[in-house]
């Protein structure tokens, strides 16, 4: 029984990476912008936080401040990346796919350059314990949950609340569905697009920070981060554009991703080496199936925002 509990908690902890990434991407997509820069943004969010921890990791500041400053630096860096993206796609009306891909190229590259110069003993060893509050030092599986994990759940639920229960969320969804109509009723389309993209990016960046500093907590963690950025974009579809659904979705994804290492420990399931890649393929196959099924059923509330991927120019009509 214990191994299954460990497995569940590990899946949850792993999933928090995607929870941040896809919650951020959902906010952006709800404003009508398909941000393929998320992998780059998550990488830079991680790099930003680690840069700050590199500065203050051994300074003897109170743990609370170290945790807070790391999070703020991460938010700031990924928010800046979001600002680049929204400046290009909203103000300059550039193609969103191309801009996003360029942002990913840039972000992943810059993160690798920055991270390869830093000393992991400073940004990792001390701060990691602070981020694992309140479970730091425990011997059981709970020790891998911490501040950032709980923050991920709070952010996902809060985003859902804002999107679906408040006026701001209603306006935001209107912008993503039909910007021309939203503009006509007096909603400031560009402001909504900017804010949603920057806030979404900032949230996604935390996912990268969490992955490097907390979940993996290793010096090489940053090298594998990009793939999980793409997985976050997949998770948006899986969650049908509802942030609170990412909590379930990311656990499933985390489960599928880490089961290849757990299942080999259980002797009554015979798993060959060749099965591992197939198990890792499952999250993507499941996403494709969800995408197809939701398009076959064609229920309006399960579709991508109607104007997803299109730039808006008021005088274009």
């Amino acid at each position, binding site marked *: 029984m214990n191994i299954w509990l460990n497995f569940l908690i590990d899946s949850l902890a792993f999933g928090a990476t995607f929870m941040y990434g896809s919650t951020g991407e959902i906010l952006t997509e709800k404003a009508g912008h398909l941000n*393929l820069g998320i992998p780059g943004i998550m990488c830079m969010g991680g790099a930003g936080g680690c840069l700050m921890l590199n500065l203050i990791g051994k300074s003897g500041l109170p743990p609370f401040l170290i945790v807070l400053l790391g999070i703020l630096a991460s938010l700031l860096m990924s928010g800046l990346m979001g600002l680049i993206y929204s400046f290009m796609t909203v*103000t300059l009306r550039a193609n969103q*796919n*191309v801009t996003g891909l*360029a942002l990913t*190229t840039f972000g992943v*590259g810059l993160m690798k*350059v920055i991270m390869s110069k830093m000393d992991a003993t400073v940004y990792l060893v001390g701060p990691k314990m602070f981020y694992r509050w309140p479970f730091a030092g425990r011997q059981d599986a709970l020790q891998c949950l911490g501040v950032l994990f709980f923050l991920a759940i709070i952010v996902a639920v809060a985003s859902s609340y804002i999107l679906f229960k408040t006026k701001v969320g209603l306006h935001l969804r209107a912008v993503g569905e039909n910007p021309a109509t939203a503009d006509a009723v007096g909603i400031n389309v560009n402001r909504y697009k900017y804010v949603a993209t920057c806030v979404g990016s900032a949230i996604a960046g935390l996912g990268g920070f969490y992955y490097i500093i907390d979940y993996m907590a290793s010096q090489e963690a940053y090298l594998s981060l990009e793939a999980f950025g793409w997985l976050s974009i997949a998770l948006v579809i899986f969650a049908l554009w509802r942030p609170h659904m990412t909590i379930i979705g990311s656990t499933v994804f985390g489960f599928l991703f880490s089961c290849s290492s757990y299942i080999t420990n259980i002797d009554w399931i015979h798993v060959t080496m060749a099965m591992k890649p197939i198990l890792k*393929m499952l999250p993507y196959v499941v996403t494709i199936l969800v995408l197809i099924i939701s398009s076959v059923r064609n229920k309006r509330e399960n579709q991508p925002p109607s104007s997803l991927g299109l730039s808006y*120019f008021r005088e274009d009509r």
Partner: protein
Amino acid sequence: MSQHTAENREPLVHLSKRPTIHPVKSALIRLAAIVLGLAVCGLVAFLLIEKIRENPGKIWDFYNAFIKGAFSTPRKFWKFLRSTAILLGIALALTPAFRMRFWNTGAEGQTLVGVLGAIAVSFYLGDKVPEGVLLMLMLLAAMLSGAVWGVIPALCKAKWNTNETLFTLMMNYVATFLVSYFLVIWVPNGSSSLPKMKYGKLPAIGGNDYLLPILVVLFLTIALYIYVNYSKHGYEINVVGESVRTAQYVGINVRKVIIRTMILSGMLCGLVGYLIAAGMDQTVTTNSVGGQGFTAIMVSWLGKFNPLFMILTSGLIQVLNQGAAQISQDFNVSGALPAVITGIILFFIIGCEFFINYELHFRGRHGRAQAKKEGVK
């Protein structure tokens, strides 16, 4: 943003679409963007590379390396031509789909399964059939696998209007893990790197290993230029891209066009995969395509989906790549630097399209001064 800062007055900047632009003017705008981008790259290099920070004079070596990386020796130049050809090949494969506004983000996967298909044939049949037959079979396998990978999303798009951007994106990862699955099967010792195949290597023309892929892609460029501009198929693709309703009204079978075009697109990706497998690598890894499938999307878009312009854009990106690789070697910095530099230049090229497509009208002289200030920011 600036047009919203003063809502109750006349806006600071008024935008309008340019009906036409003189080709020289648009070329100058693009050139200015690249120069600006390079300047920003210099700034970033100053921040990231210690040797330049200590001795700012070295910044000229930095810029020099861009030329050195691609043009200093014949071998580097041939390598540059071949890598340009491969990138251009993938971008060409994407172009018919893009002209149809089918946002195929799956070129990476379609090319990768092409590599995988070719290598699979060589792995299982390598010593059983003559080399010439083997090469033909590899080509068929590569094009078939690419086409299959491309047509699955197209079928769903045609039947249920499934979002193709996300679908094709996911197919990339399925392809990646498919490759690692076969690597585990083929390489029993667990190192999962497949040694080079002994059979199924494209012949070197006149002793030059690089020439054949270049010639194939050159031929492809011309063929595709004719296909999209002067054939009935190309016309149908354009009509579907402009408006699906118009296409239906004039009696074009939209579903058929979508499926046919994606078969073509995937098949050409598979062809490039074949060039990589039989002409260069002789093996397959999960990184055989190395992100070029994504870069090709930008190449095609920056080249305005015109095969001839795309020669320029793919060449530019490869100059940047090889130059930046030279820089990481010369200055002993992380191998990730090319991505940073390519990213920065791409931002500027993508951004400058705005100034080509739109005209800015400033409000009076006061507004102009203010706008200049904002422009500096």
